[in-house]
Every structure is written in C-alpha cells, then in structure tokens.
C-alpha cells in the first residue's frame, strides 16, 4: 500500500518535471515562431504601412490581387525558382561525386575531404564579399577573368550582366555548399554493406553497374533528405544577391526574400510584404510536404 502510494507520487512528480522541462522551449517556440507566423498571415489581409500605424485597414485579399499584377513579384518568384531548380541538382550531384571520390580509405583521404569541405569554414557573407572581388569584370583585378583571358577566352561581366549574374551566384553557392552535403553522403555511403560490392564484383559487375544498382538504391533516403534541405535553403536566397549585386542588374537577382525585405523593411509596406511572406511560406511548406510524400510513398 505504502509502495503504491510512493509510486503514484513518483509518477506525479515525473509529470510535473516533464511540464517544467518542456515549458521553456514550448513557450519560446509559440511566442517567437507560431505567433509571428499567424500574424504574417493575419496582416497579409491588411493595408498596413509602418509609417502610418494609425491607419490600418482590413482589405481582404486585395494584397494578393495586387501581388498577382505586380511585375516585380513575378520576377522575384521566377528568379528564386530558377536559382532553386539549377542549384539543387548541380550542388547535389557535385556533392555526391565528391563523396564518391573520398569515400574509400586511401593515403591523404582526410586532406582531400578537408579541402572539399573548406568553403564551409567561412560564412556566406565572407564568401559573397570574396567572390565579388574574384568575379570582377576587369581581368587585371578579377582572378577568374584573369584565368579566362590566360586560357584565351574573353572576360565576362559576371555580376554586371543580367544574363550571367544569377548563374555566377549559383556557381559560387554550389562551390560553398557542396562540402556540407558531401559529408551527409559520406555517412550514407558508409551505411551500404561492403559485401554487396564484393558479391557484385565477383559476378563481374562493372563499376558503373555497381553504382547504378547498389550505391544509388542504397543512398535513396539520403538523396531525398539532401535534396530537401538544399531546396529549402535555396528558396531562402538573400545574402549573396544583397552583398554582391543588390538584386541587380535589372532585377536579375532579386529573390522572394529580397522582395519581402525591400517591401517590408525599406518601403514600409508591411501588410503587402506579409502577403509575399505568406506565399513564400506556402511554397516552402508545399515543397517539404511534397518531398516527404515522395519519400514515404516509395518506402
């Protein structure tokens, strides 16, 4: 009897501790993630200018209908989608190729892994400033153009030409990010049993067949995860164009997040910016749900 009483006392004690343990995190998550999210959607229904907080007016879906005919919004959406559609395959394939290069133990493998990972040791701000100098259109000051000229090619106005600016940012971003995904792939490759490769090579399978029928299926889950995080990250593109091109030339590198920033923080069109943020949020969530669905459906 005494023992049972003790036990329920302990259970009660445990429950109180549990609530005390989750409370700080849950309160913070609700206060600084859920509430602002709800407010983003809520304010997207209002005409709300930062400079005129006394004149807030409910306008229903007018912000959205304005958005539909806003050329700058479509440009920002197009640029963001273009960046994502190109950088995701480029970066993921590059990362997988690097992982395959350094997946086996050989002399110096740690050095090569560190080399491929090294761009990750600097921040995106640092990378963006550095590459702004490297991409300089003048071959006498821009390292990349100086290399092109030495190879007998014409110099390229990487960041000042609207047709090359986004591609220049894509190339740089893939270079910076691939090392991170390479590490995830390396862990995935270690999960594939060696015996499968040994059996296949006894059966006379070529290296390519081994890759096609053992490595790729074995990495399925990892590949999907890597694609998903790269995609979400790509959708958030802001730092690189902000530092390197200020969204130009001719809006060629304006992105959705950049447009949220311009409308909300620079122009003070708070309600309007919230409607862009809501669209942005819906796209990101739809992407990750879509990815999850593909993942679960095929397992």
């Amino acid at each position, binding site marked *: 009897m005494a023992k049972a009483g003790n036990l329920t006392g302990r259970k009660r004690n445990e429950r109180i501790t549990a609530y005390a343990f989750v409370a700080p*995190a*849950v309160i913070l998550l609700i206060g600084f993630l859920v509430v602002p999210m709800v407010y983003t959607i809520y304010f997207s229904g209002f005409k709300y200018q930062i400079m005129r907080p006394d004149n807030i007016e409910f306008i229903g879906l007018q912000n959205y209908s304005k958005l539909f005919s806003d050329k700058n919004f479509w440009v920002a959406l197009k640029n963001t989608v273009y960046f994502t559609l190109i950088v995701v395959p480029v970066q993921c394939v590059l990362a997988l190729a690097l992982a395959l290069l350094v997946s086996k133990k050989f002399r110096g493998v740690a050095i090569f892994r560190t080399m491929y990972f090294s761009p990750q040791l600097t*921040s995106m701000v640092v990378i963006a400033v550095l590459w702004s100098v490297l991409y300089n259109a003048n071959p006498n000051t821009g390292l990349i153009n100086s290399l092109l000229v030495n190879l007998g090619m014409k110099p390229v106005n990487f960041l000042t030409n609207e047709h090359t600016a986004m591609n220049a940012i894509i190339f740089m971003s893939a270079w910076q990010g691939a090392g991170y995904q390479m590490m995830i792939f390396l862990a995935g490759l270690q999960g594939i049993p060696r015996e499968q490769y040994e059996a296949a090579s006894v059966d006379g399978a070529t290296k390519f067949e081994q890759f096609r029928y053992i490595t790729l299926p074995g990495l399925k889950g990892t590949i999907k995860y890597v694609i998903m995080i790269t995609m979400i990250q790509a959708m958030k593109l802001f730092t690189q164009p902000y530092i390197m091109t200020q969204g130009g030339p001719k809006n060629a590198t304006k992105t959705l997040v950049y447009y949220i920033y311009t409308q909300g923080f620079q122009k003070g069109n708070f309600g309007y910016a919230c409607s862009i943020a809501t669209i942005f949020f819906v796209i990101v969530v739809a992407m990750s749900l879509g990815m999850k669905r593909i993942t679960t459906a095929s397992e």
Partner: protein
Amino acid sequence: MKKNSSLKFSAGLSKFLFYFGNIIIGIIFVSPLIWMISASLKPEAEIFANMNSIRTFFPSHASLANFAEVYKRMNLVQVFKNTLLYIALILALDLLVNSMCGYALAKFDFKGKNAILNLVVALMVLPMEAIMLPLYIEMSQLNWVNTMTALVVPFVAKCFSIYMFRQFFCDIPDDLIEAAAIDGCSPAGTFFKIVVPISKTVYATVFILDFVAHWNDFMWPFLVMTGENKRTIQLAVQSFFGTQPIHYSAIMAALVISAIPMIVMFIFMQKYYVEGIASSGIKG
C-alpha cells in the same frame, strides 16, 4: 608474366589518375580561400600586381599591416565582444532549454507529449524569413531592438536541436534512470546528475552545429542590430566591404579574421561537427 606487369601498370595508372583528379578538384576548391589569405598578407599595391602568374597565390613580402588597419577601422574589439557575448548567451540557453525539452519528450509520459513532438517536427521547416516581419514588430514593441535580447531570445528554442537531443536520449537505457530513481534521485536530479554527464557527445554536437550557425548569422542581426557599436562580426564584415576608402587587402584581412574562430573550432571539434552533419542525414 607480361600480363601481370601490364595489369600492374594499369592499376598504377588508375591510381595516378585518381590522385590527379582529386588534386585538381581540391585545388579548385581551396584556391579562392588561398587567394584570400595571400591577398590579406600583401600590401594593397601588390594584390592585383601578379594576376597572370601563380605568384598571385603567394605573398612575396608578407606583413600583418592589413590586419592592423582592420583592427583600427573596424572597431574589432567591440565587434568580437558583441559576437562572443551573443554566441555564449544563445548557446548556453540553447543547450539547456532544448536538451530539457528533448529529454522530457524522450523519457517522460505526460498528456500532450505527442502534440508537442508533432509541433517540433512541423516547425522544423518553418523558415525565419517567412516570419521576420511580425517578429521584428514584436521586438520593437518589446523595446528590444538593438539589444542582445532581440538577438538571443527569439532563437533559443530550436526544433532541430530538440529533435537531436530527443533522438540521443531515447537510446539511454531505462534501467539506468530507474536505478537512479530507486536510489532516491528526483526526475530532474536524474537528468542533471546522471544523464547530462554521460551525454557529452550530443551536447558537443549541438554546440558545434549551432556555434557555426550563429557565428554565420546574417539576416536577423542585420535587421535588429542597426547600431554601429552593436554589430556582430558578419555585419561588421559586410559594412566594411562598402566603407571608403576601399582597400581590398584590408577587406581580405577582415574576411580572414572572421574565418579564424571557425577554423579553430573546426580543428578542435571536427569529429563532433562532421558527426552532427552526418547524423542529421541518417535520422532526418
């Protein structure tokens, strides 16, 4: 006999090609960073002088003059103070708050547990950029703009950290926790005295992942820390890039300075960092 030696030759050749490929790609990956370091050690007049030769990657008269210039012009002491304080505060709270939550979700039974777990998983994909407008208004109504509180408090709770902690604590045997309870340890005491000391790995992993993330933070500090003496390192570097007079060698020195703490961290915590990145892929 002959066949054997030609086999040996082709094995040697493929080994050579393998190393050759790795070296070429490796050079492509590190050369921008080498150029950055080399330029940071050169006088301004020299940094674009040898663009056509390999010598552009090696300073001929290395000096630390550029670092002295950055030190003078960037208010470096203040910037490092701000950044280190920011990181120390947010990491201390991050490790405490998220590990407690992760532990409760792993080892306690209580009403609403599944709901909270679902919330944590769902919020993991919520991008900060989607909520930054109302969050900023929240900060300004609380009078937190340009204070450390605005930088730290909103981002202490982190779904990804909670998830990593929970994952780790799930693997701790229940026997151990029950044994502690029988010895008269309270549930909270069990966590702090028994579980935390044997969980250094997960703390180290979350620490290094979040250290890197916050050291690199740009957008949120950029929005809430507008005062010149409030800047964190990334903001200082970004604004130094556009400040007259533009000395590229000094800019490169500023970039190197901002990378040094990351490199030091990487050297000491490489194992946990790499494990953290890798485990996110396996478990996520």
